[in-house]
Every structure is written in structure tokens, then in C-alpha cells.
């Protein structure tokens, strides 16, 4: 009896270690997922911001052009 108790006492930390490490893995894995998510979020945002930026630039250029056209109208009047 005492032998088996002893064996159990030895093995308990190992068993506990497995459980703990599994827990750590689960957390690590989740952090990994969060970082993956953030990365793809980053890429996606950048690409969308780039599109937005492009649209704004185009509008700006358009406005500039139209302004130049209008100024001509005024001088002629």
C-alpha cells in the first residue's frame, strides 16, 4: 500500500504537469489565434485604407482640376 502511495506521490507532479502544460498550450494557442487575427486584420485594413486613400486622392485631383476649369470661367467673365 505504501509503495503504491509512494508511486502515486511521485507521479502526481508529472500528471499535474501534463494538465498544466495542456492549459498553457490552450492559452498559447489562443494568443496565437489572436495574433493571427490581428495580422489578417492589419492586412485587410491596410488594403481597405489604401483603396479609400486612392479614392480620396482621386477626388482631390478631380477637385483641383475642376477648380482650375472654373477659374478660367471667372477670368473670361
Amino acid at each position, binding site marked *: 500500500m505504501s509503495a503504491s502511495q509512494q508511486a*502515486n506521490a511521485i*507521479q502526481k507532479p508529472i500528471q499535474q504537469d501534463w494538465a*498544466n502544460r495542456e492549459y498553457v498550450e490552450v492559452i498559447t494557442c*489562443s494568443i496565437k489565434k489572436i495574433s493571427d487575427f490581428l*495580422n489578417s486584420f492589419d492586412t485587410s485594413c491596410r488594403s481597405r485604407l489604401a483603396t479609400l486613400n486612392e479614392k480620396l486622392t482621386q477626388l482631390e485631383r478631380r477637385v483641383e482640376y475642376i477648380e482650375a476649369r472654373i477659374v478660367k470661367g471667372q477670368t473670361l467673365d
Partner: protein
Amino acid sequence: MDVDALKDNDVGEVMVSHRTRSSEECMMASNDKVTLTEALHNVNVLDDLHLPDQQPCIEALSLSIHYQTNFDTNFEDRAAYVTGVARYTEEATVHSELNKLLEEGKEYAVMIYTWRCCSRALPQVKSAAQENRTEIYQKIVEVMEPLVSKLRDFMHFQIKAVQTFCGEVRRLCHKEKRNDFVSEAYLLTLGKFISMFSELDELKNMKASVRNDYSAYNRATQCLKLSVDKNHMEDSHTLSMFLATQNKIRDELQKTLVAIEGYEDLLADIISICVNMYENKMYIEPNEKYMLVKVMALSLFMVDTPTNSIYKMDQKKRISISKIDRILKELEIVPLYGDMMVAPYQYIKKSVNFDSSKWPECESSKVSPQSNILAHLEPIRENHMSYISQLSRHSNEALTTMRGKLRSSTTLATSRSDAENKDLYELALRGLQLLSSWTQQVMELYTWKLLNATDIHSNPNCPKDAETYEKSTRYNYSSVEKFAIIEVIAMIKGLQLLMLRMESVFMDAIRRHIYAELQDFVQLVLRDPVRKAIKKKNDVTKVILVAVRETCVDWLRGVEPQGDPAMRGKKDPDEGFLIQVPRRNVGSSTTQLYLVRTMLESLVSDKHIGKRQLRKDLNVKDAQNIEAFHKMSFFWSYMLNLNDSLHASCNLSLLWFREYFLELTMGERIQFPIEMSMPWILTDHILETKDMMEYVLYPLDLYNDSAHYALTLFHQQFLYDEIEAEVNLCFDQFVYKLSDQAFDYYKQMAGNILLDKRFRLECAHNGVLIEFPKANRYETLLKQRNVQLLGRSIDLNKLVGQRINAALQKALEVAISRFEGEDITGIMELEGLIDCNKLTHKLLGQFLSLNDFDAMLREANHNVSAPYGRITLHMFFEISCDFLPNYCYNAATNRFVRTVHSFVEEVRREKPHHIPHRYIWGAKTLTSSFSSIYRQYAGFVGAPHFRVICRLLGYQGIAVVVDELLKMVNEQLRGPLTKYTATLINSMPKNCRLLRYDYGSPGVVAYYQAKLEELIQYPDLRTEVFQLFREVGNAILFCLLIEQALTQEEANDLKQSAAFQNVIPKPFIPRQDGQSQKEKLELVKSVMKKLEVKYQALQVVPVIGQLGNQQQSTKAQEGDLLTRERLCCGLSMFEVILRRIQSFLEDPIWHGPAPANGVMNVDECTEFHRLWSAIQFVYCVPVGENEYTVEQLFGEGLNWAGCALIVLLGQQMRFEALDFCYHIINVYRADQKDENVKGIQIKKMVNRIRKFQILNNQIFAVLNKYLKADDSGGVELVRNFDPKPQFIGSSDSFQTSFV
């Protein structure tokens, strides 16, 4: 990560500091406590968020956040495994110390490798008398001290490392222990030491700058007389000796080793294990492979001493030289450190008992297979293809099932079976091995090429004075090799990305698989050997087996199954003894794995444990099982660190680092130019050849690799800065070249699309091929909006867009400049060029955001804020300076052609110089093709030109041109023409009658000739006067033709705008049987109504009325009205022009004085039509053989001018009635006398008169048509005059009507 720290937390509830927000269903209640399950669920639903990234994936992985976990404890937790065999726990302790030393060694290697010479930058003391020399020396010492202290540390480290190593060897070679078991991992670590020593040694040999720096420091200290301390003196002496002596470390090591008895056996073991691992591919990272080879060669060199020949060892089968021979040929050159490489065989050659006959492979002259990447390319491709398809199957599966599971249940455990986990594990392992093998291919080729530089004989392109580095890189690769490297790099980077994307899935499966394998092994497989050991009372074996089991067993519910018969050495009951093995999502810890593997290895090893070979205690099957497990578990540590392994086995940073070659230049070069840099050589190769365009971002990614390692491995800011500088330069070049190419490509495409198909065919028949540009996928590149380079996110699309915008703008400007260098016919090519650019714009506009094309055209035309642009101005310039004075109109062809003889100065135009073809038509062949097409239009000005003018000038431009033309006509009419008219009328006789028919035609001709003698002889008549009239006539014709062209264009526009104006064509409805006409009409009406309703949304006016404001609505209505009106009453510009010209004719000279008879002048030559009759007489006189006719010189513009003036002056009837020539023709008709009157052949003259009469009639008809249109009612006013008695004339009675 510290595992112990987490021990207190049980799996259960944890506090999450911030409330996690996520989508849909997982909204938390208002309490701030989040359970672990909920937290994990929150993380899992992140997968559901849709994060679109539109760009095609053609670049390597680049992460903003790189999350890497490292559970390697370096045996810190060894004490926890109390159940392990004490001996191996001790070994772990030693092992951990050795690992630390290895780490330290790596740092010193980095230090030496990245050492840049300081002494060259130091100010030199020129003479002993220099005033500030002490100050200089002090500064030198101050600056160099930290560096020198590092060198000193390095020396001490090296001594310590050699001592430790030799201490270990001595311990293992002790007489008692000589036959004892030494674990594979331990031997390998010793091997690593040997490799480290050789690295440090070679680095130290190579870096002359280290020695120079140290001697500079030494000089300074000596001059300052700082080193008075004796210890210090000695130390510095040893250090300089250490630095100056070549191969100091190796020699020292060998000297110490030789003194140890039996060291050869240990080294022989190391060699065998290296050979074994190399042959069985027991490595993952490329560097490990090279380490094995280096260790083999170096150990052989160490073992080979005068007393102990390696060839004898070979005979004794301790080592196998033939195997090593083959390996050393296979890998002739291996990277030593960074860009330093070493030929391992050279070590052997230097050994004491070297015998070349034993090394047939290495001695043979054949080229090592490592230099030939092309031979490996096809298998690599095949492997890539098959692996990618496998991977994508799993990836899709993982994606769909994971998503599905998340929805269906909240449990975290996936229900993947053991077999599936195993599949995934093997897939990941295979992927890792493939990646590593491809990386090896590239690295091996690269290192081979570095050492085997090209020369002028093998590569004629290599200049004589090429630098060493250049010879190794720039000129050392053929095009095919470059492509092969690019392709392999792309495969590596591409697959790495795919695998990293699946990392979570892989990791999950790997951990579960390893756990299952391990637990199954210790709980089930090990039962048999344990039973046997107990039964046979093999205590040692039993102890080890039980230790293995207890080190890592994880019983179901934490309780060992009671009464296992195997533990008592008994047989299982017949129904079997059931042990349920649990499953977890966790792998073994590093120490655990090490202990288990070492203990198992000791069981099956040939060596002794204590006094016996334990292998004999096991039966064959058990031994095989254990061996299989041992072999399989070798890769577990790599697989548990998949992320790390993936990065390490795809590390191609070596391709940029060149510290060794920089050192070789002895300070000549601070850094090599980009042309010699491998990443740029590869990138540029793609850009230059335009092949494999989609791969172009992969070689650029090499910079990411290098920069990453510069910071994380070398810890050197300056290296990073240099990489960054190079990347800045390269990227600029890259964008520049890419945008140029994309522009060229689409421009050529547009040019080819627009090129006449038949022309192309004809050219092909004649052997001239005009080909479309080779299809290329620029669009994938152009769609890249976030290219990752050195941590920056670059919007490639935007950058290229900017440049292409500029290029298009330039192309438009070039088109206009070209037109400005040409005459009026150049307008045809201008339109073509604008169309071509427009098409290019359209093609590129699909991928890039370009400026509005019309806006660009206006800008190029300088027409944004000015009312008229360059095209209009040049058009007007051409019309006034070239077209009006030099062109001759011909009604038959309706064209103008250039006169045979010009009366004005030739026009000078500035032709633009040296414009690249890319801005014109895109390519040389296209430019010449289009030039020859448009040359067809260069000889004349006709309807096509006028239509193009209408399109390009627009209403505004035409208005300006016409207005200016009118001004010119005004000037001509009021200025020179009035003067000439007055002079000419004066030179005419006062009276000139229409002679009676009795005189006969010769008489009439002679009469007029005599009468008009003075006018005919007037010198300016045939030149100046005709020229002036021609210009006026051409101006009128121009206006007429432009109006015609405009009308055509407008009709076209109207047709196109019909849909928006509610003009719907009537549909054809066949009449049904028995349907009356009325019914049919009703039907048509209803269909029309339906159509109107259908297209209601298209009608501009009502739509704007609904949606726009009052002002817009009014404008729309007015516009619509104008458009409709144009159709109905045909507003004519030409009529207005004629009226304006009419208003210029105020001078009385045109009309002459009022007739004396109160009715009309008959014989008096006072009115303009009289003058014109005289002029007509002049040009109807036939010309001599070599003279130009008036048609050739002036064309019909002359006639148009005369007739228009006559009509506008209201003298048409009088002209027709009283004209001299018409009279001649009438007389000639009556008598048909053909004579030569003073050189005038009457028949010929009459023929000419006939032609001109017809022409005049045509002109009158056209003019009257336009003018009459305006007359109210169109009724001619006729006044009748009674014939007066004094009227003496022919028998004909006159009844004149005039308007």
C-alpha cells in the same frame, strides 16, 4: 515561458482584464468575469470575422505581429523528473552547460563576423612632434577599449570552451568508461563544439581587420605608456599572439586532444553518428546538415595523427571513408559562417597521413552535384505540386470543419481521429523537410558559386577588371540558373506562407499526435518488455523501462490501472487487459523528451550500461519497437516548435550577407553596389527579361529575411541600415522599371489593337511580323496594395499609378508636340495617338486609379484654364500660314492638295527631338507601321481631316478658328485686295462691249485680248492678286467643309443621344391577318407607349427635372431644345460667315459708281464682276507646255473667291450675262472657228472656259443655296424696266432681274 509560474492556476475560471468584444452570439452579460470557456470561445469566433484582402497573394509571409512560443527549458526542469535514471539527469546537467557555451560561442562568432575595421577610420598621428598626438591616442584608446575588451573575453572564452570540451572528452575516454553508452544527443553536442571551434578559428583567420584594430589600439596604449601593469602586459601579449596566429584554436584543441588516451574512439563515434544522421536525413534545418559535414571532415583531421591513421581505422571498420568520400563530394563546399564557405575536403588534405587514393570521389575532376540546380528543378517542381495539392485539401477540410464545429458546439475539443492527426503531423513534417531541402538547394548552389567564381573564359560578359564579389555573384549565373533560383525561392516562400497560415491546425494535430504516440507507447507498448524484464529478473532493464514510463506517463484520470499483470511478470488474461489511454492537446516537454529518448536509446544501444549490453535482454520485436519510437521521436522537438523550424528552414538571408567579401576588399569598398547583390540580381533579372513577372516580389523578400537576421541574430543596427539603404534604392528602381514596363505593355497592346488588321496581314505576307507584346500578368502586380518590405506596408498600386499617370500625360504631350511639328495633315495621326492613349488609359484604368482622360488631354493641350489649347492654336497657325496660301482645292475629289509652286515663304516648324517610341505608339514597329498608314493622309486635306478637326477642336476651337479666318479675310479684302482691285479696274478700258457675232470667235478673242492688254500685262496679277484671291477662297472653302463635317459629326451625336431624348425608333410590327390599318396603328401606338415607359429613366430632361435643382433643370431643357432645333431647322454657320464677309465689302470700289442709265452698267468696266471677267479671261487663256495652269497653282479657291464676292455683291446675273469668256463661248458655238489668235488656240481656250463655266455655276448654286435659305419667302423680286431709246445693244432684249 515559465511553466512553474502557471502551476497555481487550474484550468477553470480566469479573469480576463478587459471585456472581450466579438461578433454576434458571444456577447457577454454585464458582469466583468469571463470564464475560460467563454474567453476561448471569444477567440474562436474571431475566425468568423470576414477580413477580405483583395490582392492576389504573390509575396512571402510578412507579419506585423510575430508570435512565437519557446518552451525549451534547456534542462532547467530536470530535477522535476525524479523518476528518471539519475545518470541521464546528470548528463542533462552537463548538456545544459554545454548548450550555454555553444550559445556564447555563437555570440562571439557574430561579433567577429560583423566586425568592421575601425582603425582605417582613425586619425593617424603623422609625426612624433604632433601637438595633439596624446589626445588622439587617448581618444583611440577610449574608443577601442570596449571592442578590445570583447576580444579579450573572446580569447578567454575560447580557452574555457576548449578546456570544457577536452574535459568532457577526457571523462568519456576514461579507461573504465570507454565502452559505456554515450547518447546520440550528447555526441551531437560534442560535434557542435568541434564545428564551433572551426567556425571561430576560420572567422578569426579571415578577419584581418580585427588584428589591425587591435594593433592600432596596442600602438596607442604603448605610446601613452598605459600598460605598466605586468599582468596586463602579459594579457595583451597573449591576445596579440592569439589574434595573429592562424588556426590557433584548432591547433590548441588538437594538441590537448592528442594527449587524451582513447580520444580517437570518441571522435570516431562522433564521425559515425554524423555520417549516420546525414545518410538518414536526420536533420531539419540546412545549417544542421552542413554542421554534420563539417564535423565529419574536421574530426577526421583531428583523429589523423602520426600514431593513429584514419585509414587504419577505416580498415578496422571504425569509420567508413568511402561513405565520407561520397558525402564530401556531394557537398563539396558548405557555408561556414555567413558568406564564408569552406571545402571540408581541404581539412582531410591537410591531415598527416593523407592518402589521395582513398578519396576517389573527392579527387575526381567531375563537378559536384551541388552546382547543378537545374537537374533538381524538375523533381522539386513535382514535389511542390503534389505537396501543395495535398496541403490544400487539408486546408480546405480544416477550414470548413473548424467553422462548422464552432457553430455546432462550444466544446473546444475537435473530434479529429488519431489517424487524422497522424496524417496532419506527417504532412507538416514532409512540408518542413521539403522546404528545408529546397532551401539547401539554393544555399548549396550559392555557396558553390561563391567559391567557384567565374572568369572571362567561362563567361564572356565578365569584364576583365571585375571585382571578386562580382565574379562570384553578378557574372556567375546563367539566365536559366537565375530563373531556377527564383522559382525555387518562390516555392519556398509560397509554401512557407501556406504552412504558416495553417499553423494552428498543424500545431493542434502535432501536439495531439505526439501525445497519443507517447502515451500509447509508454502505457501499452512498453508493457511487454517490462513483463519480460520482470519475468527474467533483468533489474537494470526493468528499472530503465519503468523510469521511462514514469517520466512521462499520464494515466487516465490520474490513476494507474490497478492489477496490471504485466507489472507482475504475468501473462494477460485471455480477454486482454484493457488500458484506456487518454488524449490531450499537449506535447511532451523538452527535458521529458530528452530523458525518454536517451533512456530508450541506452536500452537498444550496442554499448554497455554498467557491465552489460542491455539490448541482449530485449527480444527482437521489442527492440525494434523501441528503435522505431526512438527514430520517430527525433523530429518531435522540431515539430513542437513548428513556427521556429519553418522560419529556420526557409532562411535565405545568407544571400545578402557579404561581410567576408567586404573584408577581402581591404577597405576598398564600404559596401557593394546593388548590381552585385543577389536579391537585386534576381529581381532585376525578372524585370529585364519580363518573364515570371508574378514572382518578382519573392526575391525582394530576401531583404526581409536578411534584415530580420541582421536584427535578431547579428544584433547589428548598421547591417540593418545598409540593408534598408539598399532596399530603398532597389525599390525605387523596381517601381520605376515596373511602371515603365506596365505602361509599355499596355501601350503596345493598345497600339496593336488599333492597328489595321489587313495592314498587319499584308505585313506578315511580306515577312514583317508585327506582334502583340508577349502576354504578361502585370495585373496581379498592379493589384498589390500592401506589399510588405522591411516592416513597411507599401501601396504598389498607388506608386505605379502615379508614374503611369505621369507617363500617360507625357505621351499625350508628345502626341501634341508631334502634331505641332507637322503640317495640317498631322491632325490624323494626332487623333490616332489620342485614341491609342485613350485605349491605354482604359486598359490600365482597370487596375489603377488614373486621372480622368479628358482632364489629362486638356492639361496636355494647355486647355484647362485657357479657352483654347495647343491643338487649336497650331491648327490655326497651320491654316493661316500653310493651308490657305499653299493648298489647291479640287471639287471633283473634294480635297485640297499642296500647290506645285508656293508663293509664300516655307513654314518652319519645330520638330521634337528623340522621343522614345514608348511615348509615341509604344514600340518602334508600331510607330513605323502607323507612320506609313498615316502617310496616306499626308498628301491631301479632305473630308477625313475635316471630321478629325471637328472632333479635336470642338465647337469652341472651330469658333475660334473661323473667327480668326474671318478677321484675315476682312484684312485681305479691306487691305491689299481693295488696292489691287482699284488698280486693276483702272487698268481696264472704260468700256468693253460684248462684240457682235459677226466678228467671229477669233475676232472676239483678239478684241478682248487687245482691250485687256494692260491688265494682262500687269506684273502682280498672276502672282500676288491670284494668291490673295486664293487665300480668301480657301478660307471660304474651309468654312464650308468644316460645316459639312460638323454636320456629319452632329448627326452621329444626335443618333447616339436619341435614346436620352425620348426618340425611340418605331418597332416593326407585321400586319396580322384580318387586322385593319387602324388596329395596326393602335397596336404600334401602344407598343411605343410601352417603350417610352420602359426607357423613361433614360430621358435626361424629366430626370433632371425630378432630381436636380431649378437651374439644372432649365439648363437641361435649353440643351435639349438646342439639340432638337439643330435637327429641325438646320442652323447654318456657313451662311452667317458669308453674311459677315458681305459686310466687309463696303468699299465703293467693289460696287462701282451707280449706273449712268439708272438701270445697270452694261459696257462700263466699273463693277467687280467686270474685273473678274477680265481675270477669268486671263486664266482661261491656255498655257504653254512647261507652264503651270492656274488650277495647278491656285486650285479652285480662286474661283470660289471670285464667285463668292460676285454673289455677295449681288452681281451674279450681270456677271453671267456680260462675262467676256461666256461671250466667247457663245460666239464659238455659233461659228466653231478654231484659229490661233496671237498664240491663243481658240478651241483650247473655249474648252477651258466651258470647264470654268460649269465650275462657276456649281459654286453659285452652292452659295445661293446657303444664302437663299435665309430669304424670307424665297420670292424673287423682279423689277421691270422699259427699254430706253438710247440703249444701243445687240438685238437681244434685256430683262434683268437682280436681287
